[in-house]
Each structure stands twice: as C-alpha cells, then as structure tokens.
C-alpha cells in the first residue's frame, strides 16, 4: 500500500485549535502527531510574582470551558501551601460548583460537539433545523448547569466568589428553592440524554491502558481525594511529580505526560467511571446498566455515554448538597507565608494538577499546571496507532472523520493546555 498522510488541520468541535497528522504506511501508522497550534499563553511565567490570593481568579482564565475546575484547583493548592483547612459546608458547596461545571461541559460535549458526528450534521446549529427538540434539550441541560454555576460562583464563565479560604459570599438563600426545582426538572432531560447516546453507533474499538482518577472514600470524587491508578497505586498532589512526568516533544504539540515506568495513560470520564463506579448514585448506576456500559470500559468512543451518566450523577449530588443548605462561613483570612502547595481535582475532562511555590510574602515563585488534555494527549496518539490498522482501508474522508471522532471523544480542551505551544502546521 502506498504511504498516505491524513492531515486533519484545525480539528473542529474541540475547544481550542489543534490538528492531527497521521502518516500511514502499509496499513500501519508510521507517525501520529496531535499538534496544537493554539498559541502558548505562558501562565506559568506570568503567574510568577503574582499574589497567591489571585490564583483562583487568574488561573480560571486558563480555560473558558472549565474555569471552575482551574479556580478550585488553584484555591486548593494555595490552601494546601498555607495549611488552611475548610469547613464541611464550604467543601460541599465547592463540589456542587465543580459538578455544575462538569454537567455544563458534558452537556455541551454531548449535544454540540459529539452528537453532530453520530447524527450526521456538521454542527448542532445545522442540526437544529431538523432536530430542534434535541438541540433545545441540550440547551436546557446546559442552562440549568449554568444556573447553578452562577448561583454559587456568581458568573458562569470565570467564577468570582471562589476564593482561597472559601467563598466571598453565600449563595442567596431565597433563590435556593428555584434552583433545586430546576435541577429536579432537568433529570427528565438527563434520562432522555441517556437514551440518545445509548443509541449512537459507536465504532468497535478497545484499548487497554492505565486509567487515573481522583478517589475519595465514600464518594464519586471530584474535588477531594488522592489520585488512584488502575494499576493500584495512590498518590496525592505533593507526590504527583514522583508519578507523572513530562517530556517536550520536538514536533511541537503539548508536552507529553508520562506515567512512572514510561507509559501513556487516560484520565477523564472513562477513568472516573472505571475506578469509582461503586460510588455512583443508584440512579446513575441504573442509567449505566440501561445503556449497557460497565467497568472496565475500554472503548474511548463510549465516553460519550459516561458523560451522560455523569450528568445524572451531578444532578443528584448537587441536589443533595444544596438541600442541606447553602450558608457558608466567610472566607478565612489566610496568613501569607513561604510554602509549597499542590492539588489534584477532577476537571470535566479528567485529572487536573496545580502546584505552587510561594515566597514569604505569598507571591508565586513557581507555578506548575498540568491539564487533563495534556495528560491524555499521548494516549490519544496511541489510540490512533491502535485504531488505524482496522480502518486503514477506508477512503481519506471517512478515515479523517473517524479520527476526528476519536480525538473528540477525549473532548480535548486545547485552550487550557497551558503546556501547549505553537506552531507550524506540518504538511508533507
């Protein structure tokens, strides 16, 4: 077979700008490069010298799709450095905020990024002509998630109330009923989402590799806990660098994250599902059964189903947190001092790491941030290697669209790959 190179430049329906270049030779992948030509924004550089207390605000600007995850992780890392521990209600409210971000992101992914693939439209907007109800359902789910984000965080994109030491204010109690009602009403839409995604025709493909997700006793971990791997190891934020390292890849894309021992790994909904299945609420478990997925799930395309399941999980859990009341104490006034702090949380796309070294005035002297997309990027390339042999016979267009779907199934968020750097679009 002749060598051919598939270039999918500027992958659409992912958040940010990236391309995939695959060189195929004799039905095998000779080379797969997930390139990111999103310009580097150098957060880790300009955070130097900034005040630790600004970090949740500043780092939320890493990513407009999952700003909440960054803000929470930054706050936790600083709290870790300054040895601040939070009261139970604040911790719970933070989780509710994180879940609202997750629900929003998942609804967006399912309805606007993935569904067009499976329903055969270039975009949800195009689909809205025929499938207005479906698109509107996506909007509704998203809107209710956003309502909660705004209620707790003050704003949907880039929350303002989240701060080191807690929240700058409690959410207005008089609106609580309305919010809980809205969440209740969204369950129906969430179930219909399960039916929708269960009926998508997913490509047959399985891959076995290390999964990593946050884990915490007794809960489907999102904001609290330590990282757990499918190979049975546990580590916390401070030990992160003993387990995960990075290497800069010369052909220009994100830094590649490597798990101890030199392997690629997966983070995100599938990893969470596989490692924390037991802690899903009953409704979510039922939904999983109904849609025929069970751990260990090995088909990355089916992450779409997991996202739908996680929407149900998020709704149920937000409800139960909010029902216990939304009054939180005012934020603790931190004592600034020298220190190092790190945190791991689950962003919608998977494990997110922030770590900071602070000087004695509480200024950042070093920042280290690794996003879920950076964690997954090598995994995506490996999947390409594994998938292509079975589909190499397809024509360029079909091949390209399948590979696009594969990349999208990781919902890569290239905007937030702070480690990403630019440039050249390589074409052969």
């Amino acid at each position, binding site marked *: 077979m002749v060598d051919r190179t598939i270039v999918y430049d500027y992958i659409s*329906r992912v958040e940010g700008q990236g391309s995939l270049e695959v060189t195929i030779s004799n039905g095998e992948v000779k080379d797969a490069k997930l390139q990111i030509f999103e310009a*580097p924004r150098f957060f880790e550089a300009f955070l130097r010298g900034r005040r630790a207390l600004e970090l949740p605000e500043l780092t939320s600007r890493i990513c407009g799709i999952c700003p909440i995850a960054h803000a929470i992780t930054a706050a936790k890392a600083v709290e870790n450095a300054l040895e601040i521990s939070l009261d139970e209600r604040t911790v719970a409210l933070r989780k509710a905020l994180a879940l609202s971000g997750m629900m929003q992101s998942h609804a967006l992914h399912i309805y*606007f990024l993935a569904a067009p693939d499976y329903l055969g439209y270039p975009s949800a907007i195009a689909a809205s002509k025929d499938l207005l109800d479906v698109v509107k359902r996506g909007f509704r789910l998203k809107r209710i998630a956003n309502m909660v984000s705004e209620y707790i965080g003050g704003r949907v994109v880039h929350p303002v109330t989240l701060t080191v030491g807690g929240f700058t204010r409690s959410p207005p109690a008089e609106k609580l009923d309305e919010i809980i009602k809205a969440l209740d009403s969204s369950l129906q839409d969430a179930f219909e989402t399960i039916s929708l995604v269960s009926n998508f025709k997913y490509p047959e493909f399985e891959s076995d590799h290390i999964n990593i997700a946050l884990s915490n006793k007794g809960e489907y971990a999102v904001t609290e806990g330590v990282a757990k791997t499918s190979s049975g190891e546990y580590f916390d934020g401070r030990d992160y660098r003993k387990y995960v390292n990075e290497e800069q890849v010369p052909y220009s894309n994100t*830094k590649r994250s490597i798990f101890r021992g030199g392997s690629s790994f997966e983070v995100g909904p599938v990893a969470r599902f596989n490692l924390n299945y037991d802690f899903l609420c009953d409704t979510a478990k039922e939904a999983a059964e109904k849609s025929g997925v069970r751990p260990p799930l090995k088909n990355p395309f089916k992450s779409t189903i997991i996202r739908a399941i996680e929407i149900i999980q998020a709704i149920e859990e937000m409800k139960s947190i909010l029902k216990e009341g939304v009054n939180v104490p005012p934020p603790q006034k931190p004592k600034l001092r020298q220190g190092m702090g790190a945190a791991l949380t689950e962003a919608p796309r998977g494990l997110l790491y922030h770590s900071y070294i602070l000087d004695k005035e509480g200024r950042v002297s070093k920042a280290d941030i690794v996003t879920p997309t950076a964690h997954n990027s090598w995994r995506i390339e490996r999947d390409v290697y594994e998938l292509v042999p079975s589909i190499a016979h397809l024509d360029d267009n079909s091949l390209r669209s399948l590979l696009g779907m594969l990349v999208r199934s990781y919902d890569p968020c290239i905007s937030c790959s702070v480690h990403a*750097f630019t440039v050249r679009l390589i074409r052969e």
Partner: protein
Amino acid sequence: MMNGKLKVGVFKLASCSGCQMVLVHLEESLLEVLKYVELKYFRMVSDDDLPNEPLDVAIVEGAVTNEEEGIMIKKIRKMSRFLIAAGACAATGGLNAIKNTTPEGEVESTVYSSPEYIRSGKAFGLNEYVNVDAYLYGCPIDGRELINTLMSLAIRVPPYIPGITVCMECKMNGNECIFLTRGEPCLGPVTVGGCNALCPSNGVTCEGCRGVLKGTNPKGLELAWTNAGVSPDLIRLKLRKYSDVYKLLTR
C-alpha cells in the same frame, strides 16, 4: 429585514475560549439571535470551513501573540466589514500581556525546557495590528451586550455600550465600597460598566477586566490609593492585569 441575515464569523486567537463560550451559553437566546444572524464560521461548534465570501461581522476573541496570529488577524480584517474585538485579550492583550514586561526568552524558558521550538512574542490587543470597529468588554464578555451588539448590527446600525463606570453600578446595587471600608484597591472607578458591578457585588474588588472608561482619571485613582496607604507594589500588580491602565499612567 435588511439585506438578509447578518453574516458573522467567530474567530479565536490566543485566549481561553471563554468569550466564545458566552456566545454558546446564550442557549435559547442564541436560537433567537440566529433568526437574524448566520454563523458562517464558528470552529468551536461547527465543521464549516473558512468562508470564501466576505463577512459582515467578525467577532474575534484573543490576543495576538505571534506572527501567525498577526497574519491571521489581518486576513480576518480583510474579509470582514465590521470587526469586533471581543473580550479583554482582544482589547488589550488581557492577562497574556502581563508578561510583556519580562523578556520573552525568560518567559519561554519558565514554561518549556527547550524553548528553541517555541515562537511567541509579546501579547497585544487587536488594534495594534488592525482597525477595530467595536469592542465587547470584559473577561469574559457580557452575554446581554453581545446580544445587543449583534441585534444592532443585524439592522445595520453600529452597536452601543453605555459609557458608565463599574463604580456607578456598584453604588446602584447599594454595595458598601470595598476600597473605602477595607482599603483594598478597586478599579471600579475607572472601569467600563455594564457587568452590573459583578465582582464588587460579590464581595471582591474590581480587577478592571472591562478596560478603562474614556474620560475617567486613573492617575487620580492611583493617588487615592496611595493616600489610603496601598503599597506601591500592590498598585503595580493591580494596574498590570486585564487592561492597559498602566499604559495610561506611565505616559
């Protein structure tokens, strides 16, 4: 009603995508807006390729930080009748421009072990490269203002954002002034309003993400901070954030 639907492209340079997300978050209102507006290019949600025909309006998010983006923004300018700089990054470089005062090589080696592969430059707002017809303020932009802007343009009328300050909106909300009561420097007095004083109303100072309002006096504000005992160091950090307020002061 006039000359058919408004042809709009949404573009992204160096940014977090947050401003595009505000467009997506319009949700049902987005469907209403789409009765008047045709999204010809919106890579984040659609496969459609760069259109060949000229656009009525380009909404551009993000700062220009390297040569490619410089070329890109010029290309966008050429193909669009009306160009909107959406968000702090597009207006002033935004947070990305904080690093502008540090030599680029130093910046790159902070993040990358082999910075020789990286090509990046200082971060600038779009108006350093092209003419900007209108701004949408904020980090991120405001959904309501986005709707008003698109609806104005749909009837072929330039958009309008009232020229009031965050400080005024903060007062209208009956908030206790954070600067006066806690002594924390707040940029509300010189910042373009329209966010309904979101941050001060939630108990935190305005960080100036919507830029400096024409006719306000940042020098006076700096003096007020100094008189209230705010340290020069904190003032420096405060002024060098989303907007280019520091430029107005060093001039």
